[in-house]
């Protein structure tokens, strides 16, 4: 074996040096980049949230004027949705999916690198608007005709439209990569019904992305055509229709809620069995519920539009659809509860965050079902009740699992254990701060406080709830800083984790922490959904030491099909991302020559990337 491992080391190790570091295609390095970059955007969104809570702590506050406030709340939403949660979960997916399915990399490693660079560039592009004081200021939903001239004359909305078009490339290529990786690169024996639920979640999310993002991209493209080239899609004066935007946006926007939520509950389904010391109850129901949620998510968008004046028949149809979608979530919640009830739970920080998720998500789910009651929706939509609800679903439902995932996989990624006491302290601060911040918003909304207001008058009965929210935000920030402190200290002082500190059930724990560049010296063979527990799965004799090779299997059965040659590090993905970024810069700066030149450069780089010489199999290692 030793010689095999040496040959693997030789063929998979990336050369030292800055260029090789930049050009890496290792899914673990790229995944870590996603995680770290998304965390930086999370910090930015947190600063924006803190500014909002400072502004709203008291009535008639003048800390931020309306112009600044509108940019801050818009960037908070855009950042959280597009630049934090989605890429963060993409980071987990990138790092973990190949490890969980026993592969050596993602199916398209260079596309993976390209996706990261586009995400980074699109994020910087959108934030450059904020630096210039011209950030998007019409919310993440960006309704027309407020988004078009004469109501929005500056470049603010162009940063939105062009930025989201640009970012959509990253999300889409990432999703395609996940779908192919999950369907084709699973280890021999990992039939689709033995696949970790996290991979089911990533698969469901990726399929949703492939169908949902086009609607957003079309909307953003039409918006930019209207704003810059005189088209009339969204203004009544020119024969357009403002509601067209709302439909296109929410056909994307509601599935996007599940795009965010599904990978997060995939994390939960990974952690619950490990800390309950028992296989997940109702594995196949949970897998089916995951897929069903992704599918049903496309049938409920109109519940964001119940107040636009639709006929009662439409209202009833979408009310029914919005009711039904609660059932798959209910199945998952009770499958987790059943696993805990049947198991012997061990409380550690990742599991605490999962429990916090469950409590918050059940509250958010229950208030979500209320929106299917159309008259109630029409009463509280666009009030703070909605703000409370979706923070319970998105912060409670996605950020808690993300924090759980960070505490769970940090030992795998760094090889070091986090401090358990700091972890538990951070949990309680985050849990109390979160509830104190967002629970009072339910009441403020029921008392009639509209959302997206930069200030509010005294004497409406809203003051005390806003003050409580702002105090809660302080506690929440402290909790997040404790997490950060824990991550930093553990990097240097944490005790060594070993390959499997949690005695977990999935394949990523059967290799060293951090894993070697080739993930597994011997390709695992899988005989159950809990390969690290079943006692019969384990390393096979398959090594594939030559070149960059990983086995491909059949999509359903997981029977071996081929050995695939994987590419190595390259700067071409970065070049392609930079070229596209320059198109965006040319468009926003009205520098037509730059946009055209960058468009030509993009075509050249892509042609070079896809030329046979570049894409063909590499020379086998000696």
């Amino acid at each position, binding site marked *: 074996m030793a010689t095999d491992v040496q040959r693997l080391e030789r063929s998979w190790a990336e050369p030292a040096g800055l260029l090789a570091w930049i050009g890496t295609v290792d899914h673990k390095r790229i995944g870590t980049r996603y995680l770290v970059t998304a965390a930086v955007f999370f910090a930015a969104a947190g600063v924006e949230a803190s500014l909002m809570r400072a502004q709203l702590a008291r009535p008639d506050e003048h800390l931020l004027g309306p112009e600044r406030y509108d940019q801050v709340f818009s960037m908070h939403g855009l950042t959280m949705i597009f630049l934090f949660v989605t890429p963060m979960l993409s980071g987990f997916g990138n790092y973990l999916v190949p490890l969980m399915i026993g592969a050596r990399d993602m199916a398209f490693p260079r596309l993976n690198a390209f996706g990261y660079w586009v995400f980074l560039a699109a994020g910087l592009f959108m934030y450059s608007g904020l630096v210039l004081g011209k950030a998007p200021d019409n919310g993440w939903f960006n309704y027309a005709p407020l988004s078009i001239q004469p109501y929005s004359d500056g470049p603010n909305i162009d940063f939105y439209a062009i930025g989201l078009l640009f970012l959509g490339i990253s999300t889409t290529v990432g999703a395609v990569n996940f779908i192919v990786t999950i369907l084709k690169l699973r280890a021999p024996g990992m039939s689709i019904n033995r696949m970790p639920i996290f991979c089911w979640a990533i698969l469901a999310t990726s399929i949703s992305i492939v169908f949902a993002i086009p609607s957003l991209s079309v909307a953003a493209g039409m918006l930019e055509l209207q704003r810059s080239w005189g088209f009339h899609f969204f203004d009544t004066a020119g024969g357009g229709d403002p509601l067209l935007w709302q439909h296109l946006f929410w056909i994307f926007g509601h599935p996007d809620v599940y795009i965010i939520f599904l990978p997060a509950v995939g994390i939960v389904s990974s952690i619950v069995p490990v800390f309950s010391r028992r296989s997940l109850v109702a594995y196949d129901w949970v897998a089916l519920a995951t897929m069903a949620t992704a599918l049903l998510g496309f049938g409920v968008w109109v519940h964001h539009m119940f107040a636009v004046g639709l006929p009662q028949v439409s209202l009833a149809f979408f009310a029914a659809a919005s009711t039904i979608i609660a059932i798959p979530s209910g199945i998952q919640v009770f499958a987790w509860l059943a696993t805990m009830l049947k198991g012997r739970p061990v409380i550690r920080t990742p599991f605490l965050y999962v429990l916090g998720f469950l409590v918050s998500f059940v509250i958010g789910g229950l208030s979500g079902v209320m929106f299917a*009651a159309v008259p109630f929706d029409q009463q509280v939509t666009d009030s703070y009740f909605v703000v409370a609800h979706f923070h319970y679903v998105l912060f409670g439902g996605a950020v808690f699992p993300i924090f759980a995932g960070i505490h769970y996989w940090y030992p795998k990624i760094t090889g070091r254990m986090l401090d358990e006491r700091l972890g538990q302290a951070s949990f309680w601060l985050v849990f109390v701060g979160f509830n104190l911040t967002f629970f009072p918003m339910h009441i403020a909304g029921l008392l009639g406080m509209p959302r*997206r207001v930069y200030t509010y008058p005294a004497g409406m009965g809203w003051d005390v709830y806003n003050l409580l929210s702002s105090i809660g935000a302080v506690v929440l920030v402290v909790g997040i800083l404790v997490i950060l402190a824990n991550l930093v200290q553990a990097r240097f002082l944490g005790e060594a984790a070993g390959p499997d500190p949690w005695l977990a059930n999935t394949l990523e724990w059967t290799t060293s922490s951090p894993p070697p560049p080739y993930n597994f010296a011997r390709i695992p063979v899988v005989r159950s959904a809990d390969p690290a527990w079943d006692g019969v799965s384990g390393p096979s004799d398959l090594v594939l030491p030559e070149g960059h090779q990983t086995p491909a299997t059949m999509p359903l059965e997981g029977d071996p099909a081929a050995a695939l040659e994987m590419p190595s590090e390259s700067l071409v993905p970065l070049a392609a991302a930079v070229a596209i970024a320059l198109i965006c810069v040319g468009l926003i700066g009205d520098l037509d020559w730059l946009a055209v030149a960058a468009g030509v450069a993009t075509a050249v780089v892509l042609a070079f990337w896809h030329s046979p010489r570049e894409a063909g199999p590499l020379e086998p290692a000696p």
Partner: protein
Amino acid sequence: MRRRISGFGPALGRRTPLATGAVLLLTLVAAGCGENDQSTLAPKSSASDQIARLWWVMLVASAVIFGVVLVLLFVAVLRRRGAEPATTKGGGLWIPAIGGIAIPVVVLTALFALTLRTLPKTSPAAASATGLTIDVVGRQWFWDVSYPDKDVRTANELHIPVGVPVNVEVSSADVVHSFWVPELNRKIDMIPGQVNRVTLEADRAGVYRGQCAEFCGLQHAHMAFYVVAEPRAAFDAWLAREAKPAPAPATPELERGQQVLLGSACVYCHTIDGTNASGKIGPDLTHLASRRSLAAGLIPNSPGYLAGWILDPQHVKPGNKMPATDLSGTDLQALLAYLESLK
């Protein structure tokens, strides 16, 4: 002001400790005061009452479900603690079958039935079944209100007769706004190129605050209005007064004030019926002095606030469409006196 809390019947009828706690909490918060209240939990019409009842029913049901989940969670976590060798498989399927499918199907079906029952009561009545039509056009950032039958135009204030279903037809002259008076009914969006309807029927006399509920730009936060529900006779008297043109200036000072107004940029945007001022962009000022507020509910309608508004509207409501007016002290005094005379 003591307020009636409707819809407590179902809530208190089947209580659990959690639900009782929530109800008590919300009782406290529902005790707002006066016309600055726009609580959804203090309904003043049968439509809002229906919605509030729906809410209380859903709250109690949710509290029960949440309580059950919480109990299961505590049982699961606190019982049998301690790591033992892992992993029996199988069993436990009945828990998601009952908790995740059977019970939700029953509860959600009931909820859907309740929704279908409530929906018609909050949906707009046929125009023929209403006693009065009011047109409201949303503009950045005020409410352009007119009574088409009487050729009356005003702003930021709707007067309605008590106990009469009123057909409110809403639209927008610029961006999407949303018309919302929580104590009287659900909200309805105001969309350019489209007329939406909502029915307002106040149970009793009072002043009910409303506010724009769809983000509409810089001053979305300051786009409020009042619905004044009054007995039929008082309403008829108000409408008759509003239908008249503005009173002619009765003193030399008022005369001068009118000249100041007509000689300034005011006339490009504002109408004062009976004078040459006929701009349509801003609020109608014909009976400005009869209104409760200025700048769409932002400041009280008093000479001091009015003076501050005229001299520096951008300080009061940054971003609004009204430019500052530079006036000498005496001109300002005369203008204020004239505007205050527009009863």
